[in-house]
């Protein structure tokens, strides 16, 4: 069930009404579980098996781990007096190994499922490209949202092992955390510690929350249907015949894709968070005005935030502060000098993170290269920082408005060029097309009517352009004021209602849905 399908809209509408009208406020989480399972069931009953296995595994191992941990702590306390320090240390080491083993098995099963379903064919394809006799592909289904719920369960398992969250002993409540339907389509990746508080507590009807949620859902649909699904038509044509659309067209692809991806992804997240908000649940924000970032590091702190922090907390940190890495760090500082040596471990961890990020985005080499390109750019900007500092020491541009605007534009262009990997979905082709921007000069052709041959009419471009302006202005409001426009609107309630009505009518009339428009799947679905 796609966000933009009518059954989904009806599903949510019925859920919200039943939720508040017919279910006692402390049992509302139960209805959410039923709805989430139904959502999965209607998509494909087989998905339910996959998600249940993952949830059950994490559930059981978490309880085992927690029980074992409390037992060994109690045992240690009991015998504190009789044991010497050495024995205590040994006891700790051995028991820690047990908990590690438990965690290892939990992760093996959860990550095993995603590895098999999502990456088997990728591996086969890669092997085939190196051999003369090709292996045949296997027919596996990729369960909807598997990357998102697997990451949620993995972080839960690790957190329980670390002792930072308490294991959930009610399986149904835990299953709701794993399967909470609005975020199955394209995230965000919630942490158990954040979501559990808001998910299970009794909920009362909160007029302001429900209103915010409703407007946010409309806003999400507006971005998705009016902008993203419209631009995707032109993008398909442009990237479908790369030989025909070189040079300046590649720049057009960059711009269109930047708008399309942003509106599609943040629109989807708006719908997700909006639905959750209408249900009285707070979901972590996944975007914080990413296109206003002044450098690439900042960009990755503002784009797909929950994924970034996930990789930081569960790959980057554990890897870079592991005993092996610390040893390596020491060694390299001694042998390579302090300046270089300091960086070795950070670079290795960072490389691992971006490799994983690339693979997580999709089972394809262009994603891997895209991830590594991000690594390269981040490292480069890190290395150039002293140079920048010197530069800024000489000239006092920094902090001036025009210089901030320049930084924002520079970061935007840089990130948009990296996204070309995702557009052309082929590493060699992407480099070729990027290069053609500087070798093929055909701006005249682009504006000589070619844009009207891509499947969009003049009116379509007009609508998309105006909608993007609207999206920009709303973002700008938040950037300058630091609060969301909806809060201002709510205080002038008739204006709030008017916004809802206008958005609704715009979505219905100008939305790119139905016959004549390709219904494009959310880009992050099945990620």
């Amino acid at each position, binding site marked *: 069930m796609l966000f933009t399908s009518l059954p989904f809209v009806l599903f949510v509408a019925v859920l919200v009404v039943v939720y508040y009208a017919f279910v006692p406020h402390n049992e509302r989480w139960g209805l959410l579980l039923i709805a989430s399972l139904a959502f999965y069931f209607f998509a494909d009953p087989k998905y339910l098996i996959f998600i249940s296995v993952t949830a059950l595994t994490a559930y059981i191992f978490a309880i085992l781990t927690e029980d074992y941990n409390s037992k060994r702590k109690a045992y240690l306390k009991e015998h504190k007096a009789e044991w010497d320090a050495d024995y205590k240390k040994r006891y700790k080491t051995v028991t820690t190994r047990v908990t590690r083993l438990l965690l290892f098995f939990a992760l093996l099963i959860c990550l095993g499922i995603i590895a098999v379903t999502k990456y088997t064919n990728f591996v086969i394809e890669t092997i085939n490209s190196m051999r003369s006799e090709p292996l045949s592909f296997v027919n596996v289904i990729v369960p909807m949202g598997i990357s998102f719920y697997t990451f949620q369960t993995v972080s839960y398992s690790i957190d329980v092992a670390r002792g930072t969250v308490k294991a959930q002993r009610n399986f149904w409540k835990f299953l709701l955390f794993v399967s909470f339907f609005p975020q199955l389509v394209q995230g965000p990746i919630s942490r158990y510690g954040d979501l559990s508080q808001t998910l299970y507590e009794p909920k009362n009807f909160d007029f302001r929350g429900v209103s915010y949620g409703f407007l946010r859902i409309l806003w999400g649909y507006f971005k998705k249907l009016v902008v993203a699904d419209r631009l995707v038509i032109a993008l398909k044509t442009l990237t479908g015949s790369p030989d025909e659309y070189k040079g300046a067209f590649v720049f057009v692809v960059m711009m269109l894709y930047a708008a399309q991806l942003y509106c599609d992804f943040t629109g989807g997240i708006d719908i997700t968070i909006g639905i959750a908000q209408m249900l009285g649940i707070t979901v972590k924000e996944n975007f914080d005005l990413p296109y206003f970032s002044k450098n690439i590091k900042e960009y990755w702190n503002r784009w797909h935030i929950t994924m970034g922090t996930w990789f930081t907390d569960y790959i*980057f*940190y554990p890897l870079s502060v592991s005993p092996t890495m610390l040893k390596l760090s020491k060694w390299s500082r001694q042998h390579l000098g302090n300046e270089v040596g300091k960086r070795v471990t950070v670079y290795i961890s960072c490389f691992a993170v971006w490799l994983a990020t690339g693979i997580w985005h999709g089972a394809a080499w262009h994603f891997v290269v895209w991830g590594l390109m991000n690594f390269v750019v981040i490292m480069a900007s890190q290395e150039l920082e002293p140079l920048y500092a010197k530069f800024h020491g000489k000239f006092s541009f920094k902090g001036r408005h025009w210089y901030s605007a320049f930084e924002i534009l520079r970061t935007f262009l840089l990130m948009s060029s990296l996204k070309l990997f995702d557009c052309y979905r082929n590493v060699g082709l992407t480099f070729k097309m990027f290069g053609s921007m500087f070798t093929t000069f055909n701006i005249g052709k682009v504006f000589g009517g070619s844009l009207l041959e891509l499947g969009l009419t003049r009116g379509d471009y007009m609508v998309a352009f105006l909608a993007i302006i609207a999206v920009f202005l709303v973002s700008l409001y938040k950037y300058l004021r630091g609060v969301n426009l909806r809060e201002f609107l709510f205080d002038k309630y008739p204006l709030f209602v008017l916004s809802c009505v206008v958005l609704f009518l715009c979505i219905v009339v100008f939305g790119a849905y139905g016959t004549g428009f390709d219904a494009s799947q959310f880009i992050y679905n099945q990620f």
Partner: protein
Amino acid sequence: MDELIEILKDLHSDVDFETCTTLIDDKILDSFDIVSIVSEVDDKFDVAIPAKELIPENFNSAKALWDLITRLSED
């Protein structure tokens, strides 16, 4: 404590680490800095900060970080 402040000053000379309590929340320290701090702390204090302690509460101020180091070294 002074040694710790020195480590921090090495990373960002322009920050007043004695008083600042929002090092993470205001994005003064990023993940790269934190990893550097962990390895320096390991070096100078022989205290290994495990991954589970890498949370904002422990890094928001020099004081919090010092408390963490003290706690870990007692264990």
